[in-house]
């Protein structure tokens, strides 16, 4: 058996791409500044091993990075598409939503579009309104797309590898504040985390918190504090948003009888609403407290630190709601 190594979220992703490129010559990566390692170092050194054709530096042309990847996927390659910041993927929405997501269906199954669309997301050191957004909910709305948002380094390796091997287009959301996060990651170059199943990040009897990406860590901090107050929080790390693991969420809510959904994205129209509504439709009779959502206010993200901080989801905010829910 292979061992484990403690590596960062960023190194885990680097390992995933390198292993998949060694395994399958059809896999290639393209985007801006990849030759020098990518803006976050997540492609560091890959050009030395794979050359500039498979680690392709592109023009700043998001629509064509995306659209050319659709074309290249249609003819049998497997592009890993780097969008640099999730915010910039908005320059390529037609290519993602009208082309990548629909080609297989519109063409009656003749076409497959195996591509991974990496979108570094979330708030990260005063980056303001165009470099901080969490837009994952948009993509869950689009038939044809798979949406993944890993939190742990191990999941960033295993899910990214699964995404690269998947024949569907996958929106792959990595949190920019997670790049340095370290954790144990299997060395195995066939380590795969399947797209779909959630991960039970923490067990607890009193309240289920469903969350993903960086908010898993924030929820874990809140759960530590809650435990000291006698509230046992169970945390479901969704890992994949479409499809999402209803089975694990339902099982957890059946046990705790309380649900809070937490995400960094704007609360209005967020994916938390989908989870809350689904649980309400199926399990209202078991709930002993109202379902609660915790997301960002519907405001653009500020640059000035105190204003930016105002929009952050903190352990305290989770804790306050947990107390309200368990008091009931």
């Amino acid at each position, binding site marked *: 058996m292979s061992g484990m190594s403690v590596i960062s979220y960023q190194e885990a992703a680097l390992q995933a791409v390198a292993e998949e490129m060694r395994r399958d010559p059809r896999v290639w990566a393209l985007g801006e500044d990849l030759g020098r390692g990518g803006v976050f170092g997540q492609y560091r050194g890959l050009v030395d091993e794979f050359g500039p054709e498979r680690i392709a530096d592109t023009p700043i042309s998001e629509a*064509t990075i995306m659209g050319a990847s659709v074309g290249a996927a249609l003819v049998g390659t497997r592009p890993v598409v780097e969008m640099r910041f999730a915010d910039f993927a908005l320059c390529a929405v037609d290519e993602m939503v009208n082309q990548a997501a629909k080609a297989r269906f*519109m*063409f*009656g199954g003749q076409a497959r579009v195996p591509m991974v669309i990496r979108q570094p997301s979330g708030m990260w050191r005063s980056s303001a309104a165009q470099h901080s957004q969490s837009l994952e909910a948009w993509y869950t709305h689009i038939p044809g797309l798979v949406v993944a948002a890993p939190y742990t380094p191990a999941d960033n390796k295993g899910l990214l590898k699964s995404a690269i091997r*998947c024949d569907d287009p996958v929106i792959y959301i990595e949190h920019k504040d997670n790049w340095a996060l370290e954790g144990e990651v299997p060395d195995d170059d066939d380590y795969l985390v399947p797209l779909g199943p959630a991960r039970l990040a923490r067990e607890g009897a009193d309240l289920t918190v469903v969350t993903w990406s960086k908010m898993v860590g924030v929820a874990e901090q809140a759960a530590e504090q809650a435990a000291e107050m006698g509230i046992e929080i169970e945390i479901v790390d969704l890992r994949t948003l479409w499809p999402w693991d209803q089975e694990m969420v339902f099982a957890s809510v059946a046990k705790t009888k309380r649900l809070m959904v937490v995400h960094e994205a704007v609360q209005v129209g967020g994916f938390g609403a989908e989870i809350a509504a689904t649980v309400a439709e199926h399990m209202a009779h078991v709930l002993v407290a109202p379902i609660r959502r915790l997301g960002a206010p519907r405001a653009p993200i500020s640059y000035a630190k105190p204003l930016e901080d105002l929009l952050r989801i903190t352990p305290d905010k989770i804790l306050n709601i947990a107390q309200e829910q368990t008091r009931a």
Partner: protein
Amino acid sequence: MPNDAVHSSHNIDRDRLVDLYRTMRRIRAFEEAAEKASLAGLVGGAVHLSIGQEAVAAGVCANLRRTDQITTTHRGHGHCIAKGTDPGAMMLELFGKEGGTCGGKGGSMHIADFDVGMLGANGVVAAGIPIAVGAAHGAKLLGEDRVVVCFFGDGAINRGPFMEGLNWATVFQLPVLFVCEHNGFASTTHSDAVTGGGGANARAESLGLEAFEVDGNDVAAVDGLVGDLIPRIRGGGGPMFLSARTYRLKGHTSVDPALYRDQEHAASQWDGDPLVRAADELRRLGLGDSDLTAIDSAAVGEMVRVAEAADAADTPALEHAFADIQDIGAPVWEAQS
């Protein structure tokens, strides 16, 4: 090669011109059958006819191998037929019937036939440009000597993907022929009124592409020029650009009477109908009227039959609404009892 090379129709082999004429006539007959079906309410969605533009489709695709690939637009029936797609399957697709090129799920604007290298029409103007560029990028990565032809209209040159895609093709030296079918209209607006600068070729040249112009209603000229360009592109000559000036003899859609045009000018454009011009040339080369009539009747007969067959065919089984969406997280269809 100078970019003002003149390709005259007077040096084409008669048999080749007969083949080109037959392709054009089949496209025309298909479009007329589609128009009739659309006006009769048998075809539900928008149908964008390429009547008047057949010479570009026929002249370009005659120079492609089956393994070469094309992308096309909402006005793409002619390109499909010229590339070898079965008109019967296309007509079934327009009718939304089982057995259509896309199982009836795409319709006129999303016809695709990967077996003949037809990578898809597109409902979004200019969206086929990055896709064609990517298909060529894929060919280069895979070491295949395919050429990709990207068809679009003069309306597309004002969208960002046009600039991005042409630049990309130059930067990566990809085997693409961009073909701008200049039919004079961007939907229902005169394209000249909404296009700044020197137009398509000036833009292409500024992005590093060799750009050519051709009379897009002269099928022999299109065939001759493209016949020179494709081997150069296949041989590693990089991307090239061709503007083919033509005229959209019908409206934007089958139900658009095109009253925004100068009616006298529009009527006069029928004198330049590429089929009439090719027929005249064939007569000059000694083809008899009876031979021409035989080609015409065969084409019309074929397309009348495919339309009748499409009308009689079954609609797709309902579960297809939920098929071929995605492997992971696909919707579950429960038949309504």
